[in-house]
């Protein structure tokens, strides 16, 4: 069974491009345009990695990560934050396994996903929030 990735991003074009790119790399990909819809998908399906934006309508990336970390089902699912902002201005509180600053190279994203799936410390490849704090 293919590894399943959930992309959570309200930027239409970016989300579409990421989905195509990850599908071509062999992943099964679902899309949600905000945190609340992402939680619905997480309730209904198995997801191996969550790839989320920070600023979104309805429920943002930090609220989504908090909800995931406090629920039983996906508590340990790796969450990668994609953001246009420097993480220094965000209060991340260790919610994310890795942080990618937009724009990023596709290889960096793919490498970060692999590292997270292996349970490796993804900070080396993608500058985690913990490192920047």
């Amino acid at each position, binding site marked *: 069974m293919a590894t399943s990735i959930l992309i959570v991003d309200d930027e239409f074009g970016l989300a579409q491009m990421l989905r195509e790119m990850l599908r071509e790399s062999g992943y099964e990909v679902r899309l949600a*345009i905000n945190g609340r819809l992402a939680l619905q998908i997480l309730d209904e399906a198995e997801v191996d990695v969550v790839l989320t934006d920070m*600023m979104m*309508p309805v429920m943002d990336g930090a609220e989504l990560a908090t909800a995931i970390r406090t629920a039983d089902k996906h508590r340990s699912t790796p969450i990668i934050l994609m953001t246009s902002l420097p993480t220094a201005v965000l209060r991340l509180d260790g919610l994310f396994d890795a942080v990618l600053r937009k724009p990023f190279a596709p290889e960096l994203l793919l490498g970060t996903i692999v590292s997270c799936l292996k349970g490796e410390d993804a900070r080396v490849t993608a500058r985690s929030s913990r490192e920047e704090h």
Partner: protein
Amino acid sequence: MSGSRPSSERRPTGIEGLDRILEGGLLGSGVYIVQGPPGAGKTILANQTCFNHAAAGGHAVYVTLLAESHSRMFAHLGRMTFFNESAIPDHVYYIGGYSALAAEGLDGLVTLIRGAIQKHKATLLVVDGLISAQESSPTEREFKKFLHEIQTLADLTDCTVLLLTNVQRASGFFPEHTMVDGVLHLTDELSELRPLRHIRVLKLRGSAPIRGLHSMRITDQGLEVTPRIETRLGQGVLNEAEVAWGPKVPLGLDALDEMLRGGLRSGSITMLLGSSGSGKTLLGMQFLAEGVRRRERVVYFGFYERPEAILAKCQRVGIGGLKEGVEQGLARMVWHRPVEGVIDELGESLIQTIASFRPQRLFLDGMEGFKRAADFPERMSHVYSAIAQELERLGVTTVYTTETRALFEKTIEVPINGLSAATQNIVVLRHIEHHATMLRVLAILKIRDGDYDARMRELRITDDGLQLLDTFAGASGVASGGGVSNEPRMTGLE
């Protein structure tokens, strides 16, 4: 607007010139369309307003619809001083709205916007890419309904809304214009090879904006708007009597001061009209040097010769004291490049300099500098008139130069329309041939409400300063360039 009334509280955009045009800013719960072609500055205007709003303690939500990605937008805005990353996401929040629009239509977009305003307590909302909402609408009525819902939302939440959309032209009928409180139109066009940006208020409910086109510039500070200068200068009451009966301001050339019966009237405006090289600039600098000698504050405002070059020239020809005046803070030299300027900015710079430094004397070297910076030549007479009235109101005695086109013309024409009427005094300088010699000649052509000596004098530039000679006594036809003396030539200095 279906009975909804925008709050009369003004929310400044924080863009100074724009707020002046808008009578202080946007209405509290007003809905505004900001339109223009791509690249006109709509996104910068909206973002700048958001960050200025945040700096004042407000909260803004910026919704994009098939516009550039947020990371790309941040990269472009990052070089601008107003862009403050630390205000994101707590005070300025960016969301993409196109996914909701594509999935659920305009109703979905309204729901998304309503939720974002409430969640982030937004008092300013930007929807960037209104054209996408319009194109997604199955009918014109649906789109109007969407706008109506946005208005209702703005009213309920006391949120100011900016809707950004691409249009090429300002004229024509746009149904959406009837649904909003204001329409700002931005343009970016070429005048010959010079890029010109303008902003125009097409509509503004509940306000009396400054109408017409206003200059706009995009710099590292963001959008800078300069209201059309003729709409705001010269509004004060002029006291012609004060000018007519004010004390005399000598130029420090005894012969010329005698011709002027003691000097120029305080607060008056004097044109030095002449051909290139006829001595206009040096005469103007002599006027300033005399001011410095009397411990008055003086300003040089020019476009062509750089201040350091002109000061060096003055020293070479014996017009002394100006460099020292600059060092002592009595003289201020203001120089603008004659190309790529914006006439409204030049006028603003001039008036700000006079209003802040409060000089007794101003020498404006090269009135044509304003003309070269004009976006529309037909504005010039209004601009000159407004600047002249403002200078009079500020009480500064002004001397300016303007250049005649030909060196040896028989008739004298003022090259710029509208100048003479705004000028009390005219002094002509020109070259003439006299006894097979080229000479500089000076004559007073006009002194409003005052006596003067109308004789023509030779103006000589020496190492010891300017000198006026009574070379043409008894000669006739001097003004036409072919004066023949009826008496032996006089060479004595006056």
